[in-house]
């Protein structure tokens, strides 16, 4: 066979065998869910990991003492590793205690690290002491947990951290000891008390009912000391932050940080070891919120069945949105968001386009428990409290000048719920009927208010020129500048001259610390589903000027608001709490420390083979509830991805047809 024939045969073979399937053929028909990660995971250490990206993994691997009901909204806590959600117990001196009782005979995943506790040991029981150990890790300054401030309400928490740091500093050799011994020698945390192997009491210096939510997050999941000691990165061993020891339904089967992470079933999960318990977090729920049955989330085929359904979860690092979305369209990812560039093709008038519907996709919209807002520095003499009524009217006028519907249309394809108050949908206290009188778009009223404030036509009487204000942003990107320009233009219509001062994020934070800013823009995404987690952003005690690093960047301080907040934060959900939230909202609507913009809304697309996916908004362990139909997925992938080979042949023939005459002519002329 001539060389040319070999080349042609090779080309044909390559084209026959070419495929765009990014997964091995052996995965066809397996119950594997494929998901994309927008970047590499920094850490899987539960004490440190805080981003949504990391929680996508840690939430499946770390089982917590409590968890959220999968379907119910507003969110409801149910027992996880604990037998019950503990009620608060009042103690003398204003202290409050919570007693968690862990289920007996629960075990960690199999792992060689447990040999440190006894030769040949590959696992051991999950103990209350492991939760205490994790709380001490959060306190440990060397761990660098970002949630350390929250837990300072535990009696003796800060003192423990201080003792630990001092002994490490002053005693030679102290820091070389095993980490659990260091904690023991530092005396432990006074407010974390163990009663036997399975009971853990947490004593708080003050009432803080929201603490229970933190026990539904991986931060407080039990961690065995053996894992932290063994996985130290030496002698070829992994680091603990890359080698979590699972207590949850899945364990890490492969960790290639920069390309893929594979989770496989944990055969030691308490739901697998003790199916007879039918613990709430180990079976598919039988009740949810109104409308769940219609959405297929209470399918009788699943209700009451033991979890999990999937054999594996695969996360692939996919940094670019467009390839990710295209792979979703080809069926290689089971779910996806919608890229801006394809939005109009996918969503038509708020619904899934006929083209996408014909492919069996579903569009699910979720309002995230978040709020994005423009804030005023209330310490500023022009826009803040020192300016008195004049400043308040200025803030009210500026609030009325912002057309948030237009803003959403331009910058987010109309996605998002226009915010009327800091409390977003899905959080107790949100009132869908409530309309903030200063959050409608009313330029005429805005002008009138500006006139009343003494800035007639936006002119500052002191200078005779348009009132000059500055808008600080901690982002120099063009997109952010454009969004801010939208607001600046709206205020320009009132005659105000607002300049944009764009710096990098840390310079901006520095300005915030120094108090040298007037108007800013920020957002907050809930850590836990409680109105306290939003309204504390305007609590006087949280003012950044008073407490550097605290989140009340507007420096809003109102004694009436603070008093209502202090009462509201400790109350259980009920009419009294709702009434207090309403009164606080009324103060905010008049004082206008913020111009509330949107509660962000995400649009997610799911292929028809995916079952039971109810978007949560919060980072929750949803992987164990999800199922899929692998046969349907294989069929669809095959139908959607047949290679089209004729262009290769056409190109080859065209190339030959163009070149050959030239060669022939060349040789003929030479002869």
């Amino acid at each position: 066979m001539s060389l040319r024939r070999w080349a042609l045969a090779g080309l044909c073979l390559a084209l026959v065998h070419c495929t765009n399937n990014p997964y091995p053929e052996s995965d066809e028909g397996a119950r594997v869910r494929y998901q994309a990660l927008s970047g590499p995971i920094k850490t899987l250490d539960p004490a440190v990991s805080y981003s949504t990206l990391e929680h996508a993994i840690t939430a499946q691997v770390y089982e917590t003492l409590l968890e959220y009901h999968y379907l119910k909204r507003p969110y409801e806590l149910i027992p996880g590793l604990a037998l019950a959600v503990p009620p608060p117990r009042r103690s003398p001196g204003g202290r409050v205690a919570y007693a968690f009782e862990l289920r007996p005979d629960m075990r960690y995943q199999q792992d060689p690290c447990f040999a440190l506790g006894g030769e040949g040991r590959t696992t051991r029981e999950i103990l209350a002491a492991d939760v205490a150990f994790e709380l001490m890790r959060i306190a440990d300054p060397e761990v660098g947990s970002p949630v350390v401030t929250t837990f300072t309400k535990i009696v003796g928490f800060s003192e423990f951290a201080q003792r630990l740091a001092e002994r490490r500093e002053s005693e030679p050799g102290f820091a070389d000891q095993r980490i659990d011994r260091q904690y023991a020698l530092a005396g432990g945390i006074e407010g974390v008390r163990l009663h036997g192997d399975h009971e853990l009491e947490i004593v708080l210096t003050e009432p803080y009912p929201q603490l229970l939510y933190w026990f539904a997050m991986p931060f407080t999941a039990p961690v065995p000391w053996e894992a932290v000691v063994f996985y130290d990165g030496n002698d070829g061993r992994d680091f603990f932050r890359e080698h979590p020891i699972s207590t949850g339904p899945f364990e890490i089967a492969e960790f290639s940080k920069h390309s893929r992470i594979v989770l496989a079933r944990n055969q030691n999960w308490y739901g697998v070891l003790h199916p007879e318990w039918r613990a709430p977090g180990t079976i598919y729920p039988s009740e949810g919120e109104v409308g769940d049955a219609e959405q297929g989330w209470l399918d009788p085929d699943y209700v009451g069945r033991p979890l999990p359904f999937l054999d594996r979860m695969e996360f692939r690092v996919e940094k670019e949105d467009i390839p990710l979305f295209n792979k979703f369209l080809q069926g290689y990812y089971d779910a996806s968001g919608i890229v801006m560039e394809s939005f109009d093709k996918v969503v038509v008038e708020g619904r899934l386009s006929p083209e996408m519907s014909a492919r069996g996709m579903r569009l699910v919209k979720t309002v995230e428990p978040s709020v994005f807002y423009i804030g005023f520095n209330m310490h500023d003499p022009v826009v803040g409290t020192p300016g008195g009524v004049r400043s308040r009217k200025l803030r009210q006028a500026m609030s009325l000048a912002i057309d948030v519907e237009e803003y959403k249309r331009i910058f987010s394809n109309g996605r998002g719920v226009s915010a009327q108050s800091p409390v977003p949908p899905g959080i107790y206290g949100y009132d869908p009927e409530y309309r903030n009188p200063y959050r409608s778009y009313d330029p005429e009223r805005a002008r009138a208010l500006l006139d009343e404030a003494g800035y007639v036509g936006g002119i500052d009487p002191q200078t005779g020129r348009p009132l000059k204000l500055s808008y600080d942003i901690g982002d120099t990107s063009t997109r952010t500048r454009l969004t801010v320009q939208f607001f600046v233009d709206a205020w320009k219509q009132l005659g105000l001259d607002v300049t944009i001062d764009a710096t990098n994020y840390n310079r901006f934070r520095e300005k915030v610390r120094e108090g040298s800013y007037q108007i800013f823009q920020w957002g907050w995404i809930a850590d836990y589903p409680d109105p306290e987690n939003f309204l504390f952003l305007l609590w006087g005690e949280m003012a950044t000027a008073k407490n550097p690093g605290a989140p009340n960047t507007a420096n809003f301080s109102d004694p009436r608001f603070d008093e209502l907040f202090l009462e509201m934060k400790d109350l259980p959900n009920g009419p009294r709490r709702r009434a207090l939230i309403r009164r606080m909202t009324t103060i905010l609507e008049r004082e206008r420390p913020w111009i509330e913009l949107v509660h962000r809304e995400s649009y997610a697309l799911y292929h028809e083979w995916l079952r039971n996916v109810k978007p949560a908004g919060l980072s929750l362990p949803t992987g164990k509830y999800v199922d899929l139909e692998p046969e349907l997925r294989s069929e669809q992938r095959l139908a959607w991805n047949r290679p089209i080979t004729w262009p290769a042949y056409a190109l080859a023939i065209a190339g030959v047809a163009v070149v050959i005459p030239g060669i022939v002519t060349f040789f003929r002329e030479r002869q």
Partner: protein
Amino acid sequence: MLAYVIRRSAYGVLTILGVLGLLFVLFFVYAEPIDMAQRALGDKAPPEVLEQWIANHGYDRPVAEQLTDHYRRMLTFDFGRSDADDAPISRRLREGAGPSLSFTLPTFVLGLPLGIALSLFVAYFRDTYIDRAGVVLAVLAMSVSVLLYIIGGQFLLGKLLHWFPISGFDSSPGVILRFLALPVLIGIAGGVGSDVRFYRTVFVEETNRDYVRTARAKGCGDGRIMARHVLRNAMIPILTRVVVAIPFLFTGSLLIESFFGIPGLGAMTVEAIHGNDFSTLRVMVYIGALSFVGFQILTDIAYTLVDPRVRLS
């Protein structure tokens, strides 16, 4: 020659020391440690945790101490840990080198002969429409941004024709080739235009020389003239171009790796830029500078091997 090599090496050492000094000023004097801490820990990290991070990473030490440590670490190849995730940088280099080389080596090994072969082909048919079309296509190919090749390739060959996965990487033996095919193809397409343009000029210049006319007069075949005489005499410019490209095989391709999700050293560099991970970035720049200087010296030595007329002094 030894004296020349020693002198060049000494210049190289000075260059490297200068690069290291510049890196220190740019990354660790000009940059604010608080920015790095914020990037590493996220927006919600409280100030005391940021301070602790700065202390843990040694950015609160006096500048002189940091400078000494910087030189000591780099010169002893003790690269330390990443600012982004505390992972040892040397481990990340080891992990990233494989994926980078698995893409850059085939691109280089296939692209170089292809470029040379095409250049010989168009040079042989010089002044015909094949030559002119070749030159036009080469200029067109080198004028188009790699980004367009990437997006166009992903769209056409991945999305529309379903020949290759749009992106991704899996080093398992059964599937690695399907992930590398498209990036390699794009890497070759992105480089072949300038190769053909450059090598063609070299070959055309050589074919006009007397020795070619003499060989032809003596009855030497065209194929033999091009492959043995012209190619051999054009080795110096080829060598210069090839050796300059070799260091980049190790450092990977920033764009292609990022767009295709290849977890190589190019993608690592991009991540480090995005994440203010200056510890990683300085290592990448240092390695790039080191290999560039090293290969420059090797190029000079190689000249003497391919052309006996060259003497280093």
